[in-house]
Every structure is written in C-alpha cells, then in structure tokens.
C-alpha cells in the first residue's frame, strides 16, 4: 500500500515537486538528523508547530490504522516534556546514533501544507560494541511555513522494525 494519502497521483515528475523545495527539505531533514546525532535534541521542538503531532510508530500500527505509537506527542508540550524526561529522569546505557536520510520527496503541496517523505536508516552503537542497523523506515510529514521557516505540523516516523531491539531512547 503506498504511503501518504495523497501520494500516488502526485508522485512523479510534477510541478508540485519543485527542485528548490526538494533541496530545502533535504537540508532540513539532514539538519534534524545532525542535531539528533550530535546530542542536541533540545533543539528538536523548534522545528515543530505548537499544534504538532509527532509519532514514532511501527509499520504494524500504521498500516492497521491503530493510533498508539512508540513515542506519541500530541502537541509541542508533550514533545518538550519528553525531552525533559529523557534528560532529567531516564536511566539508560550510553550509546551513539547516526542518521542516514535518502529519497527526500515532495508528495504534494496543498494550500500552505507541504506533504513530504523520506527514508531513514539509523545506526546505534553501544559504547562497548559495534554499530548496528537499528531503526529503518520512512518519515511521513506535513509541513507549513512559519516566520519564513518550514515547521512540521505532523511528523510520523513509520518504522519497518517489527520490534525495537532493547530501547528507543531518543526521538528519530
């Protein structure tokens, strides 16, 4: 089943998919990957609108239309709270992540809303082990422009993983 409701028709060489927008999105996606890899997750909420929905969700839940997620942030408050909770309350073994983003695509531009998607591959390395292929999937996003910058109104990180190995400490 193709991802993103409006996808099939709009995909392909299409006016909506302007080269400039694609470049802007690629830069944005990599910027976010970079801040997550660089342990600056506090900067993440700045890329979201106040009424955002941010979810990490398995393909299993997503394909069945089930609402629960692995990370479920309904509004920027919950997103900021999560980051606070990670920093202030959580006990976990130290590890490093690296994001690899490929295939950033504009799916549709409707009114002020840009629908976009991209593949992600995130490696995880415990401090005493080799990196592993950790989470792989697809960002399904809706963005709007606020104060001249693109912000996510909705970001779903839909993971191919049937299960998470051990823990998913940080947002994807």
């Amino acid at each position, binding site marked *: 089943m193709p991802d993103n409701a409006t996808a099939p028709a709009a995909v392909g060489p299409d006016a909506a998919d302007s080269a400039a927008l694609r470049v802007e999105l690629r830069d944005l996606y990599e910027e976010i990957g970079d801040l997550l890899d660089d342990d600056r997750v506090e900067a993440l909420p700045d890329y979201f609108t106040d009424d955002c929905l941010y979810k990490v969700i398995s393909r299993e839940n997503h394909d069945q239309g089930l609402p629960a997620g*692995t990370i479920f942030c309904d509004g920027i408050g919950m997103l900021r709270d999560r980051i606070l909770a990670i920093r202030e309350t*959580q006990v*976990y*073994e130290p590890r490093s992540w690296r994001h690899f983003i490929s295939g950033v695509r504009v799916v549709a531009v409707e009114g002020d809303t840009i629908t976009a998607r991209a593949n992600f591959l995130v490696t995880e390395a415990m401090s005493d082990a080799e990196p592993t292929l950790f989470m792989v999937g697809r960002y399904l996003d809706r963005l709007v422009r606020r104060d001249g910058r693109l912000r996510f109104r909705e970001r779903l990180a839909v993971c191919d993983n049937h*299960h998470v190995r051990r823990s*998913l400490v940080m947002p994807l």
Partner: protein
Amino acid sequence: MGKTLAAETATRTWPAEGWTRVPFWVYTDPALFDREMERFFYGPSWNYVALDCEVPEPGSYKRSWIGQRQVLVVRHADGDIGVLENRCAHRGARVCWQNKGRVDSFTCPYHQWNFALDGKLQGIPLKRGALGKGGMPADFDTSQHAMKALRVHNEGGAIFATFDAGAPSFADYCGPAMHGYVRRLFGGRALKLLGYNRQLIPSNWKMYIENLKDPYHATLLHSFLITFGLWRADTQSESIPTEGGRHGIMISRNVGKKESDATAEIKRFKSKLELIDTDSVTPMREFDDGKVIGLSLFPSVVLHQQANTLGMRHIIPKSVDSFELAWTYYGYVDEDPALTRLRLRHTNLYGPSGFVAMEDGEVLVECQQGASGYGHRQAVLEMGGRDTEPQDHMVTEVLIRAFYKWYREEMQL
C-alpha cells in the same frame, strides 16, 4: 552462550539458603531453558495469546506465540475463537504467512491443502491423481490430519490457550485472587484495540517475570513514576503471591506529586521537575477501588492498569538470553473519547521508549550481562523479610521469593 548441559549439570545445586537466593545459572543455561519451555509453556499452563477485538469478524485471524511455538488465533463462523498450531498437517509448512488477516478457510501455500477455520482438513488437490494415476490412498482418513487445535479459554475478551489436555480450568489455574483481578479488567465490556509495541530484550525471560514481581525497584528506579506520584513506597500498596508463588499481584495507587519522609530516601524523586502538559501524568478516575495494578499471570503475560493505560504484556521467550515483549494497548468500546485520548497519551509510559518501561529494559539487559560469566554467583532476595506470605506494602521482594520457591519445585532443582 552458556556451557553445554553435560558440562554444567554437575554444578546445578541450588544455594543452601533456599528461596532467598537465586543462582545466576538459571538465566544462562540453555538446557534449563528447554526444560522451562516444556514444563511451563507447553505444559499444563494457560498462555495468553490475543484479545478478541484483534480478530473481530468470522475468519479474522492473528498469528501469536506460545513460547517458541507459533499459533493462529481464529474467529470461527459462530463467533467463538479457536487457536491452531500454525503448521500444515501435511509437511509442516507454516500455513499462514501474514500477521493478521481474514479468510474463509486456510490454504497451505506448499501443496494447497485446505483447512477449515477450526483446522479440519477439507481439501487435498489431486487427491485422486491425474490422468488416472497417483493421488492419496483410498483409505486416507482426512479426519486424522487436521491442523492441531489447542484448548481455548475466553475470559471476557482475553484469549488464553493450552497445549495440555490435562491442564486445570482457567479459573483454577488462576486461583480466585488472580481470577478476580483479571475479571476486574475483562468483565464483559467490549474491547477496543489501540495498538502494539514490541521489544526484543536481550535478557532471560524470567528477569522480566521478576521485574513485575518487584514493586521495590519501581519506587526507586522509575524517576518519572515516583516524581509524579504514579508509584511510590509511601502509598497504600499490596504484594500478593498466589497459587504457591506462580502468579503475583501488585497493587498501589496514583497519588500525584508530593514530598514526604520517604522521598528523602528516594534519590530519584525530582521535586523540581515540572511538565508543560500535565495531562500526561494526571489520570482520569476510572476504577472505583482507586487501585493501579500489575498482574503477573505466569508464564506468558503481565496485565497492567496504570494511570489510564491498560495493557497486555505478552512474554515470548526467544532463547535463553532474549525474549520478545509484545505490548497490546486497549480500551473499551463504550468509553468516553476523552478517556481514550488519555490512554493514548499515557502509553508514553510503556514500550521501548516508555518513561517507565525503557528503564526496565535497560536494567534487565544489565542483569543478563551481569550473569554472563558469573553463573556461579547468587542473587539475594531478603527485602521485606525471608518468607513468602502476602504483604501490605511494596518495600519487599516477597513475590520473587515465592516465585522461586514454586519454580524449584516445578523444575525439580
């Protein structure tokens, strides 16, 4: 990898102190793991497999697990739910290759033998051969070649199954206390499926059993729970082993954020921590008794009700040092949408990123790693005394002691 059985059985002597000690080889010996599968998961136990709302219509099915055996949970035409071994009566291929779906009957992909929803063999292609040659013997009795069906119990929408014809009834297996608490959650209201989370935790499955029989850790480790008063030592609580230690019941209350004498001893209480979105830690009152509950229904499931989240935690052992933990979140069809919304928000406590569950996953792995190479050492279980009687507080390891008392007998260790 542990040692081979031959190398280790000689040294399999339980410490003289008895159930206040646990030797670490119980977490690392592959032969012991095999015995656990046979005696518990494939023996006279009732194993959780699904919620009925996951297979809503006749022909709806879901693949599930009992230990290392995959099974199919199927809704029959009459609305009843059956459980089948997911393997063909012919040459053993998995009949069903999808996690969920809806069918009129099952057709095995290999030679297309066809089975009814209850497993009955109802079609063999080329049974009479082709061009007058071949086919099955005339006396081949299809009634002897069904997909194997398990005994099933549906407790208000929670589905359990057993491989053992000699297992007691579900009610007797639970015992009255556990059965009562199960019925408190599954009392007949129609269930609504909210979704799944799945983790592969590289630790022995019994470490998870222990974790859910250990209220003491929760009030010390889980900063988020403690700080927002969702689980705290200075709260009215109970720790009740049942059926000789097989099952365990933990009870407490959500009391909100506050300081007390106890918080002084609990370093991970964070008085300064304030959330922006306080809904996340402010449950709506739902059960009249005001309790929050964790039920360890041996061997395959923990049922939780915490804040407004309801969940089944399905324990699926994969090897001596890993298990899958499959979370199913649910609500009730007739409930207030505002409650459903809170249930979803409160799922942030659980799963591989849960503010509570993530820490459990992390410590379990560290316990398994701590066991590795150190099978000759022993854990100490003396918090809350040395006996195995129910206690009316949470500063205790009584549930774990009772469990290992029972486990030794069952495993003949």
